[in-house]
Each structure stands twice: as C-alpha cells, then as structure tokens.
C-alpha cells in the first residue's frame, strides 16, 4: 500500500537526509516512526505525501509511484493520504466547522454534501459542541482533533501524523492518541512520527520503525532485509 524502496533523499545544502530507506506499510497497519531530531522522520512523511521527490529509489503510495507521478495526479493522491502536524495548521480566520468545509470546498465538493459531512466528522472527533469556535478559542488538543477531522475528510487510506502530540500535555496527548487508534480500527493505516517513547512502549503491539541519521536502524516487523518483497 505504501512502499519505500531504497529511497535516498538529498537536500541541496544539508546533504543526505535519507539513506537507502525501505519499508512497506500495509493496509490498515499502525506504525510508529521514531528517531532523534534530524533523523529524517518528517522527510519520510513528506515523501509519502509527494511534497518531495526522492533523489533516488521509489516511493509507492496507493497505486501511485514517485517516478511516474504526473503533477496533476498529486491532488488525487493527497486526497488518499491525510496529514496532521505538531502545529495543527488550522486557518485562524475560520471556525472549526469552516476549516473542515474549506477542505471540501477547495476540492470541488458539492455544496449540498458539505454540511452533512462536516457535522459527521466533527461529531466523530467529539467536538460537535464547539463547531462554531475559532482555533484560538480551542485548546491545543481540540485544535488537533479538528486537524484530524480535516485529514479524514476524503476517507484516506492512510493517516500521516508528524508528532501530533508534540505540543500537547499528557492528558490531551492521550486523547489524541486514542482518537488515532479509533481511526486505525476503522480501517485507516496510520504512520506516526513521534518523540514520545513512553507511548511507543505502552503499545508494544504496534510496529516501530526507527531512523537514525537518515537510515532505518530498527523495524519491529523486520522487513529491512527484503525491501523488494511482494505486497
């Protein structure tokens, strides 16, 4: 479903950010992406979102391949891949509901279906009562819930989360994490970059991929040795 095959990524001024990274994330799987700061976690997520192109190797996402990707296919891919960030990235001049409606409007959704879908998603993340609130009127945890709802708006096959709890306290973090588990049990694969090792230890049933200095140094599923294995 998502496959990185011998991926190298070089940035013009900072050299190699990824070195020969390979892993395969299956449909519906949950995986943590860990490693020290600068290890390349964000780079991996951006490659999967096709915000970057690999310098060498191939990234395959839900039938699309980095090498053969056409520019006009990228929006289609992004609707299959939801993404959330440490910094939430909500539009400040729009309410929670308007932030969700915006994501539908700009992808050409029919106006008749927008309202229903927004209400359903806002209820799903437990914020139906705060639909009319602006981001600055919401707690960090609540903002991240809206961001998660936005990432789910096109029913993606995978959710990419880049340190989604990085700005949240213990309790809010747990809430957000539980929500991503719910999302995962509904069938969406999750790839979560995190520094929160407590969390990783608390859920040993989930896969862990560890990066150090741009290379995969540990993968609990043990696939690093067979990067070209069948999907």
């Amino acid at each position, binding site marked *: 479903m998502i496959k990185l095959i011998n991926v190298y990524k070089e940035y013009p001024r900072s050299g190699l950010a990824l070195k020969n990274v390979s892993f395969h994330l299956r449909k519906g799987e949950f995986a943590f992406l860990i490693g020290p700061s600068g290890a390349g976690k964000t780079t991996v997520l951006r490659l999967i979102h096709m*915000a970057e192109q690999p310098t060498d190797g191939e990234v395959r996402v839900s039938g699309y391949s980095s090498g053969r990707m056409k*520019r*006009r296919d*990228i*929006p*289609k*891919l*992004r*609707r299959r891949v939801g*993404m959330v960030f440490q910094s939430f*990235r909500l*539009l*400040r001049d729009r309410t929670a509901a308007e932030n969700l409606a*915006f*994501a539908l*409007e*700009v*992808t*050409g959704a029919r*106006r008749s279906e927008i309202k229903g879908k927004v209400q359903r998603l806002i209820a799903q993340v437990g914020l139906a009562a705060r639909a009319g609130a602006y981001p600055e009127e919401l707690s960090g945890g609540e903002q991240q819930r809206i961001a998660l709802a*936005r990432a789910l*708006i*096109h029913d993606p096959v995978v959710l990419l989360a880049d340190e989604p709890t990085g700005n949240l306290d213990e309790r809010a973090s747990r809430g957000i994490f539980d929500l991503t588990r719910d999302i995962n049990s509904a069938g969406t694969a999750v790839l979560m970059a995190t520094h929160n090792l407590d969390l990783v230890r608390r859920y040993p049933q989930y896969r862990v991929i560890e990066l150090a200095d741009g290379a995969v140094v540990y993968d609990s599923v043990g696939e690093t040795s067979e990067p070209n294995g069948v999907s």
Partner: protein
Amino acid sequence: MAYHSVREAMAAFRRAPGLAVLSAMSIGLSLFVLGTFGLVTYNVEVTLRSIERRVEVVAYLRDDVSAAQLEVLQNDVGSFPEVENIDHVSKFDAIRDAMQDLEEFREVFTDLEVNPLPASIEVQLKSEYRDPESVERVAELIALYPFVEDVRYGREWVEKIYQLRRLGGAVAAILGIAFAVVAILIIGTTVRMAVLARREEIIIMKLVGATDGFIRRPFLLEGFITGLAGGLLALLLTYGAYLAVNGSLIDLEWLPPLWAAAGGLAGGVLGLAASDAALRRHLITYA
C-alpha cells in the same frame, strides 16, 4: 467550482479594498498614457490619410495629342491595379482653374493669345498604393507614352508622409510595450501580495488535495478584474482628456469603437497574464 473562485476573488477585494483600488488606479494611469498616445497616433493617422488622399500623379500631355490617343491612355492607366480614379484636365480647364486660383495673374492670362498651359490627366491611387515605390512605378509607366510630355508627383511629400507614418507606428509600438510592461509589473505585484497574504490558505489547499487550477483560478479572476477596472479607468481618463482638448486647442477625432473596446479589454488581458506569471513563480511548492 466557479462559485468558489468568484467568492474568493470578491473576498480578496473585500479584505484589501485599498490595495485593489490602488493597483487598478496605477494600471489605469499607465494605460491612460497609452490611451492618450493612441488618441494622438490615431489623429495623426487621420490627418496623414487626408493629406495622402491628395497624393496624385499628374501627366502633362503634348498639345498634339489626339482624342483617340487620350482615350487609349485613360483606358490603359485606368486598368492599372494601383489606380483609383482618373480626371482629364483639358487645356481650357487648366487655364480656367489657373485664373480662378491665381487671381493676381488673371490679367496676364487674359492678355495671352495662345493658351500656354498643357492638358493633363490627374491620377489618384488607391490608399494601399500611396507609398513612394508604387507612386514612382505608376509615374514611370505613364511617362512611357510618347504623347506624355512630363509626369509630376510630389515626390518629397510622398516620402515624408510615408516616413512620418512609419515613425508614428514605431513610437506607438515602443511606448505601447513600455507601458504594458509597467501595467504587468503592477498587476504582478498586486497578485504576488495577494498570494503572500493568503499563503496559509494556499498551503492548506495543497495539503488537502486541491488542484492547481482550483488554487489559481481566484487569483486569475482577481487579476483580470483589477486589470479590466484599470483599462476602463484609462478609457475614461482618455475620453476626459479628449473632451478637454477637443475644440479648445485643436480638433480631434475620438477613437473608433473597436480601438476603445480593445484598449479596455487589453487591461483585463494584461491582468490575467500578469497574475498567471506571478502565480507560476509563487505557487510551485507547499511548505
């Protein structure tokens, strides 16, 4: 989808009405310079054309030309592709015109016993053949007839008019390009500022999978409307200048409707092109 573009473009004007008005006005002023120049060029053109209409080739005939020879000449010359019209001026017509035109010499003419003025044919050329080469070619052809004594045409005039017109065309083209560039830069800057002001929105649009076309369309519309407003303003200003000058200083003709419409629309097209260029430079990546 169209609804989204229109609403977003309108929202942009509402968010920064000062900026929109300012850039429409700057565009309007730079296109106004162009409009004024267009008006001047057009009037120079009209004047030149009326002078040019008087460009003619005159063939003076020998006194012993027969009626049959004259008819051959008229038929031949009349069938030249360059020729629009031929007038025959007999010896009698010539002396009568001369006495009318040159009153001071009337007595001199009356005292003469023989008419010294030759008969002639006056040949008018079609407007597309009033350039120096064509006029000269026609004159040379007519001079070949043995009963044609002499052929005259205002050689210097023809060449001067021709040069003036070419100069006018060149200056108009250069100024036109210069001020079009100014207008493009202004619109480009406006759109760039609009893009930067809505950077966050554009990032989110890319994040959630909006197509490039969808992201660009509101900005293109905004550029088009700004440019069109500038174009109309320029047209209005030019008309104002025309009203102010016409009659009091010199007599002018207003631009033909097609020129005016093209000028107004050019603003819109410039706006569209400038937005397109600005977007190409600024929408390539998402953070």
